């Protein structure tokens, strides 16, 4: 410490070490790297290293017992041409995301707007909306399985009471309804969650002057919503969309616990497909190839969204 205090006014050329090593900049950089060290190690050990390993494995056959056998692009060719569950699981996953993401975004925005109306008891409403998001996914899957119980669940009881007929969906036991059940369950957890809180903060960040100016120009409620609120919220909408898409495409635990991918593969999501190949059949090479395809797709999706965002996202505070 004392050395660093000494060196700046008096330039000491007699030292053996090159002068730049005692430069403040250099010391700062060394300290910076030292504080960064845990994460540098973590990146190498738990992220980049395993990525390289799984990248290599994706070109091999590996069943854990025998050593990995290099097979070139055989895994990928098989995935795209022979795997009977690959395309259905991809389509299922996209279909799920395509419904869950827009609906939960719109739902979250509406909920946030409702909470932004300065109603009495807003704190309570916010808590009620948020609690489902806190419920552990495994517990949520268990309790929704019970609510969707085809015979004695409350939902089917209501459906039967309203329609007056004894027929009601089989939900998690019915291939035609299992996906709908999972979507309802996901929306229950997503609408009042982080997305809503982030929207709420976004709404509160819209400057009141803009609304006042709009009113002076004769704008009504709708005009204010479409021409002030929505444009000012575009950064928040963008952030929530990117995270929402990534989260929805990764769906795993809910389906794994509630439906186990069934019935009749009706909820066989892509991550379930990877899981089964890797940890049930121990086809580690094949599963790594599946995982890399997944990563590639997520990357492309996120990249496209970032590119598109330049066209529609408006950053009010953009200076640099």
């Amino acid at each position: 410490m004392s050395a660093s205090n000494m060196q700046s006014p008096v330039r000491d050329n007699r030292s053996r070490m090159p002068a730049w090593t005692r430069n403040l900049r250099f010391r700062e950089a060394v300290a910076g790297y030292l504080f960064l060290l845990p994460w540098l190690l973590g990146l190498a050990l738990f992220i980049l290293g395993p990525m390289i390993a799984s990248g290599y494995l994706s070109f091999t056959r590996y069943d854990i017992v025998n050593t990995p056998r290099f097979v070139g692009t055989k895994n990928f060719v098989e995935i795209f041409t022979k795997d009977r569950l690959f395309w259905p699981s991809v389509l299922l996953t996209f279909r799920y995301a395509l419904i869950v993401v827009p609906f939960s975004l719109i739902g979250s925005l509406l909920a946030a707007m409702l909470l932004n109306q300065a109603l009495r008891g807003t704190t309570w409403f916010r808590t009620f909306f948020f609690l489902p998001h806190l419920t552990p996914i495994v517990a949520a899957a268990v309790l929704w399985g019970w609510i969707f119980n085809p015979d004695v669940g409350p939902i089917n009881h209501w459906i039967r009471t309203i329609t007056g007929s004894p027929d009601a969906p089989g939900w998690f036991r019915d291939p035609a309804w299992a996906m709908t059940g999972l979507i309802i369950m996901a929306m229950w957890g997503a609408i009042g969650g982080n997305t809503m809180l982030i929207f709420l903060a976004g709404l509160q960040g819209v400057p009141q002057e803009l609304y006042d100016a709009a009113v002076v120009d004769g704008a009504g409620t709708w005009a204010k919503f479409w021409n002030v609120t929505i444009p000012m919220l575009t950064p928040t909408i963008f952030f929530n969309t990117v995270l929402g898409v990534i989260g929805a495409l990764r769906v795993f635990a809910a389906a794994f616990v509630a439906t186990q991918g069934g019935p009749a593969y009706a909820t066989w999501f892509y991550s379930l497909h990877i899981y089964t190949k890797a940890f049930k059949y121990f086809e580690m090479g094949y599963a790594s190839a599946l995982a890399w395809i997944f990563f590639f797709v997520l990357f492309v999706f996120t990249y496209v969204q970032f590119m598109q965002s330049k066209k529609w996202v408006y950053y009010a505070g953009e200076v640099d």
Partner: protein
Amino acid sequence: MAGEIVTARQKSRERSAAPTSLFQSASWRRNIGRGILYLIAIFSSAVFMFPFVWTILSSLKKSAELFRFPPTWLPESPQFQNYPQVFEIVSWAAWTWNSVLVASVATFGAVLTAALVGYSFARFRYPGRNVLFMITLSTMMLPVEVTLIPLYLLFAKIGWMDSYKPLMVPSFFGGGAFLIFLMRQFFMSIPIDLDEAARIDGAGYMRIFWQILMPLSIPVTATAAVLTFMGEWNSFLHPFLFLNTKAKFTLAVGIRYFQSVAVVTDDTEPKYHLLMAASVMMTLPIILMFFVAQRYLVQGIVMSGIKG
């Protein structure tokens, strides 16, 4: 109930008829608007809370009552002994302790190291910093499956299977991109003049971190800790893969196991009432934690979303 419906209907009739000037006045219309907003808020709260209510009611019923048709609302006589019974038929106490242990240790490691790394990204200038930060952020979209397979093989090879090491040790290496981002954002909001004043007084980097920045960052540290703890408590895939012995399960894995055996009527009856009690007991600590840390939690989530 009936009264409410009548008034709502009356209101809508009045609104649609509404020829007199009184009903066209702005304050009248505003009041109607507020009333509708309250109705929507109360109705949607009820929808969101219904699954909890149903679960709690189910957890207090007898097994036979659960399968009665048509379903009953309130339990005939509340069976509070269902809760202690969960502890008897599965190792609930052990699973709870395991969850507490794993979540606490992982949270400690993650928050501590994320703060150090966030400090580095926020306060130091060095070559490659921005590139490393971009890499850090982009790891958020990495699907867990890409790294999970090699890590599984690695942990199996070094004999970490069926222990808590795979669930705890990696947390001590920065705590993940989200926490690092959160800490960095917060540190960047603290004026650098404070650091500089401390440096002039002779404080080193470590001392600035512990005595200047951390005391000012208690709210964000609390947020980070609560979010991490909840995430670890709820985490399913990793403990499910790495733990085999039933006694070592965490709650998430345990409740899934319980679900798979609850339907089996080996001795007497299905145990769905106990499964519901177990769900309540797994969720309750998280909800309590939310009430205690509500302010920090909401702030932290909001902070992470600002300026995407």
